[in-house]
């Protein structure tokens, strides 16, 4: 037995010709670069109609009357459908989860019925032969509104004088969570206390391809096929079936290429639900592709938080306590089905997380308002928690005159202290804060940079260094959604089969949005099987043709889907060796698969090629010994059970220059050290981190959905909403520390959100570091020239 598994006990990751830990090109690159991607936006079908939504110009209003008579008579118009009419086909929903105690929301309709609650909510659907024809008709629909007072300022949303958006809920408080660990009052009473208000700009994840759906109800089959750019096909299947009155088996969700997701496409949107319903109502394929203005007005927003934070510190640098009071406005409805309480909940979970202090008190309140819905976007809650924590740590260091690195060194959880838990109950298997800090300082040459900063300051050039440690939630178990009653799977499955010419087909329930799911799956399967990657074909994104699973979100694809792939490949490998042993009159233990051939395990002598083995199995099974039935397909599933989340950690640093006359910030360099456990493809991991950093830098300097006091989004276009662009981005250098999780054989944790988690905090700390001679402290992002000049008293 021991001998049998000699090649197995040598980790499957270390096999000859392993692709694990190697930068190999993604299998889908050529297809995408040659313009052969299959995006929903490009999909055409016979009899396909296009839907455009007439959207409310008001933040809050009664719908008195909709007159679509003239529009219905226009050329190309197939149907115009109101919310009331669509109700016959699709039921409303309420975005709550039972484990978020007290979370409440109101029923939301696919198209508004009687009342609109944010500027951009759909009021009517215009279905026509082309998008242009639908837009022409839209101009001829008359809607009479009776404007209602809009609740826009989250700070006053709970005041008694403020109108209640949903009378049935009693007030505008969607969710509140408090936490009190250790003895915060005593700790603060024995410390220097520093406090600050941290303000975050509401922003959104601007995907290159907007949200896109083609829904095709086939009345003959009584089956709905939904082609959609989504991160969670099985979740879409479940929700669509539930609200259309269908069984899940009557809904197929197909998700081929997706032009960017970032958490934007992990939710169920009202206009997408309306599109499914319209297809059923009209018995034909209906396509909805959000245009850019609609995207800004209806894609979930995120991060609209104000957080008061306090930190206690002793003269020797010991951090004694953290305390936060977080307030966030989520729009008029809690989003479905993941809810809009998760971000605030994460903030409570994560503040202070890298540090040893046991004293932590938190309150988070989530309030309704008449703005676009807010929900989870890449690194949910992390940038808020990290900015508050790391901002407070820097303020504490400044208060006692200690270097920002030194205070972290004295307070970060020791690398040998694991397993342990945070005051908020987060359990850490193995983190590497100190190793990461040491590596970061070496990469950035911290001391030299400090010297350069001092020299430049003497010449009136103001540069700053900002550092931010962070922890990241990855590989979520059922603790995230399942326990709250959401039908969102936390397990994933992979099926691997050997075809008749020795090629491998691999079906996985994780999805691909450009982050490399296809590549990492092929790398793992190829490595474990002993088959070259170009022989491995990966199929994803089809509820009819993949195992059941969660999809790709919360940095779970590699850690969970990757482990399922590894186990499935191991199982198929055993099956192949069993057959090989029968054919070759050997034992499975005496054989191995290397480079597409069965070889002798001891000396590597080739025995039979896989394609020959497959030929025998599929076409000449009569030649196999009696009683041998080959199974050249294997399926395995995986879900983490020991830890609710596989926490990762890392640290970031920013080096930048502030022009104190103009308030403009120039990013000069950014460093990240990150520990995601086993690295499957270094380039993919680094690209993920860089992309995440760029989104964090966008939050730090540029991105904000600007609403006026009446609840109008005033910059819903690419000219006025500033996404980060390459011209402003610094070089981003990345290093790794590797602490594999022991919960899986693969050992991989997630890496998708690490970059976003800490980038803004590092930049904010660097700006404050640069402005130290001026006594200005800014705890608000985005750090616009206006904000900086105001803080400097220049204007």
């Amino acid at each position, binding site marked *: 037995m021991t001998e049998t598994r000699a090649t197995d006990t040598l980790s499957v990751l270390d096999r000859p010709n392993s692709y694990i830990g190697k930068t190999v090109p993604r299998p889908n690159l050529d297809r995408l670069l040659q313009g052969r991607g299959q995006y929903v936006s490009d999909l055409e079908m016979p009899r396909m109609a296009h839907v455009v939504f007439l959207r409310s110009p008001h933040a809050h209003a009664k719908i008195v009357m909709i007159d679509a008579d003239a529009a219905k008579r226009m050329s190309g118009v197939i149907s115009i459908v109101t919310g009331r009419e669509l109700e016959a086909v699709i039921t409303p929903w309420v975005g709550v989860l039972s484990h978020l105690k007290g979370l409440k929301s109101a029923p939301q309709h696919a198209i508004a019925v009687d009342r609109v609650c944010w500027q951009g909510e759909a009021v009517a659907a215009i279905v026509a032969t082309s*998008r*242009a024809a639908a*837009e*022409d008709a839209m*101009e001829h629909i008359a809607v009479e509104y009776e404007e209602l007072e809009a609740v826009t300022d989250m700070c006053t949303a709970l005041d008694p004088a403020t109108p209640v958006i949903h009378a049935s809920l009693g007030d505008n408080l969607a969710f509140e969570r408090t936490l009190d660990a250790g003895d915060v009052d005593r700790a603060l009473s024995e410390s220097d206390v520093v406090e600050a208000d941290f303000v975050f700009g509401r922003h959104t994840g601007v995907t290159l391809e907007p949200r896109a759906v083609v829904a095709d109800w086939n009345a003959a089959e009584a089956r709905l096929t939904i082609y959609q750019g989504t991160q969670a096909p099985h979740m879409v299947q479940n929700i669509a079936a539930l609200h259309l009155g269908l069984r899940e088996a009557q809904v197929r969700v197909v998700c081929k290429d997706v032009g960017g997701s970032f958490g934007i496409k992990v939710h169920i949107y009202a206009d997408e639900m309306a599109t499914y319903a319209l297809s059923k109502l009209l018995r034909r394929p209906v396509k909805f592709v959000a*245009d*850019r*203005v609609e995207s800004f007005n209806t894609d979930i927003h995120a991060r609209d938080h104000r957080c008061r934070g306090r930190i206690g510190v002793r003269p020797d640098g010991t951090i004694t306590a953290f305390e936060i009071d977080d307030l966030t406005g989520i729009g008029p409805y809690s989003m479905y089905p993941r809810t809009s309480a998760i971000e605030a909940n994460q903030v409570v979970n994560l503040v202070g997380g890298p540090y040893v202090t046991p004293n932590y008190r938190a309150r988070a309140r989530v309030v309704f308002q008449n703005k676009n819905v807010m929900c989870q976007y890449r690194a949910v809650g992390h940038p808020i928690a990290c900015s508050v924590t790391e901002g407070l740590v820097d303020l504490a260091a400044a208060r006692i005159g200690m270097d920002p690195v030194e205070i972290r060194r004295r307070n970060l959880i020791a690398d040998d202290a694991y397993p342990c838990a945070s005051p908020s109950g987060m359990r850490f298997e193995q983190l590497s804060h100190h190793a990461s800090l040491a590596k970061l300082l070496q990469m950035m040459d911290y001391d030299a940079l400090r010297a350069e900063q001092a020299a430049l300051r003497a010449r*009136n050039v103001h540069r700053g260094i900002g550092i931010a440690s962070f922890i990241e939630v990855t590989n979520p178990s059922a603790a995230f959604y399942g326990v709250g009653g959401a039908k969102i799977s936390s397990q994933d499955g992979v099926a691997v089969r050997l075809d008749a010419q020795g090629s491998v087909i691999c079906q996985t329930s994780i999805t691909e949005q450009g982050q490399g799911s296809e590549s990492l799956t092929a790398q793992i399967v190829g490595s474990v099987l002993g088959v070259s990657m170009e022989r491995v074909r990966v199929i994803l994104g089809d509820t009819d043709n993949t195992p059941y699973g969660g999809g790709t979100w919360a940095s779970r694809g590699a850690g969970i889907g990757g482990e399922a792939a590894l186990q499935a490949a191991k199982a198929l490998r055993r099956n192949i060796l069993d057959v090989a042993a029968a054919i070759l009159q050997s034992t499975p233990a005496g054989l191995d698969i290397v480079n597409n051939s069965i070889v002798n395990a001891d000396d590597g002598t080739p025995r039979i090629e896989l394609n020959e083995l497959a030929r025998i199995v599929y076409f000449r099974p009569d030649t196999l010994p009696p009683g041998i039935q080959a199974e050249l397909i294997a399926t395995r599933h995986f879900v983490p059970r020991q830890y609710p989340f596989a926490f990762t950690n890392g640290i970031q640093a920013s080096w930048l220059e502030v022009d*104190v*006359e*103009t*308030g*403009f910030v120039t990013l000069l360099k950014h460093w990240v050290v990150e520990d995601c456990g086993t690295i499957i493809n270094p380039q993919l991991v680094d690209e993920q981190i860089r992309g995440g950093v760029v989104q964090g830098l966008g939050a730090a*300097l*540029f991105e904000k959905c*600007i609403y006026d006091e009446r609840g109008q989004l*005033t*910059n819903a*276009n690419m*000219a*006025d909403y*500033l996404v980060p*662009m390459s*011209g*402003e981005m610094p070089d981003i250098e990345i290093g790794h520390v590797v602490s594999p999780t022991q919960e899986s054989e693969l050992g991989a944790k997630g890496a998708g959100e690490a970059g976003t988690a800490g980038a803004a905090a590092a930049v904010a700390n660097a700006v404050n570091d640069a402005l130290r001679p001026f006594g200005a402290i800014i705890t608000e992002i985005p750090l*616009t*020239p*206006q904000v900086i*000049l105001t803080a400097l008293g*220049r*204007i």
Partner: protein
Amino acid sequence: MKAAAFAYARATSVVNALELLAAHGDRAKVLSGGQSLMPAMNLRLLSPDILVDIGGLAELRGIAVRGNVLVVGALTRHVDMLRSPEIALHAPLLRDAVAHVAHPAIRNRGTIGGSLAHADPASELPPCVVALDATVVIRGPAGERRIAATEFFKGIYETALSPDELLVAIELPVAGQGSTFFFQEYARRHGDYAIVGLAARAVVAVGGFTDLRLGFFAVGDRPLLAAAAGKLVNASVTPALLAEAATALADELDPQEDQQATAAMRRHLAAVLLRRCVAALLARPELEAGAAT
């Protein structure tokens, strides 16, 4: 985001274009590079009945030197100006400015005539032609007329052009002896419209200005040729004099507030730009600090 239906005519000559404009009046729009017009139509902010496409009119293309005048055809694209040796030699300010105009894809289609006729107060080329004392050449039903660039811009998206006229060329005096130039703008990202910008032409002799034209942009409803520049000409430029000029400049500005900047911030940035411009043109970095703390 689809444009409303419109008719389309591709002009075969300037005369033909003028006939089309005469026939349709303000229901027509001239299509040049389309870099501002097409987005506005797709957003249904503009719904012209007909587009008169002048893109095929070779007579409107090209850059040529005639005596001491540099003539730039209205259809000359930004990228053409960026690469033109004539522009580099005789009007380098335009080259410097064009580098700030949006991104390569837009510079490959956008034209100087389109930019000037569009008259966005935050765009780069209008202040350049004002600073360079250019002349705008216009053809209409009554023939050709010339108008000083300083008289051409009338307000936000408003110019001296009437609906039946076509901007056909820009005439620029070639750069003389001792001419120096300065172009800078403050924008949140490369390629964005400026929050505040300055295009300047100066003649420097013996350490001072014998001429100085300062074309500020994004500080009002049209490019501003700052009269405050006069304080610095034929004078010994000291920090005190520069501060005086900045004060005078502030009185001339009428900046708008928008999402990027308050009026106060625009005034502040204009003063910073003035100091930096003068310091750069005179090669006296100490002037840049100004009254700054």
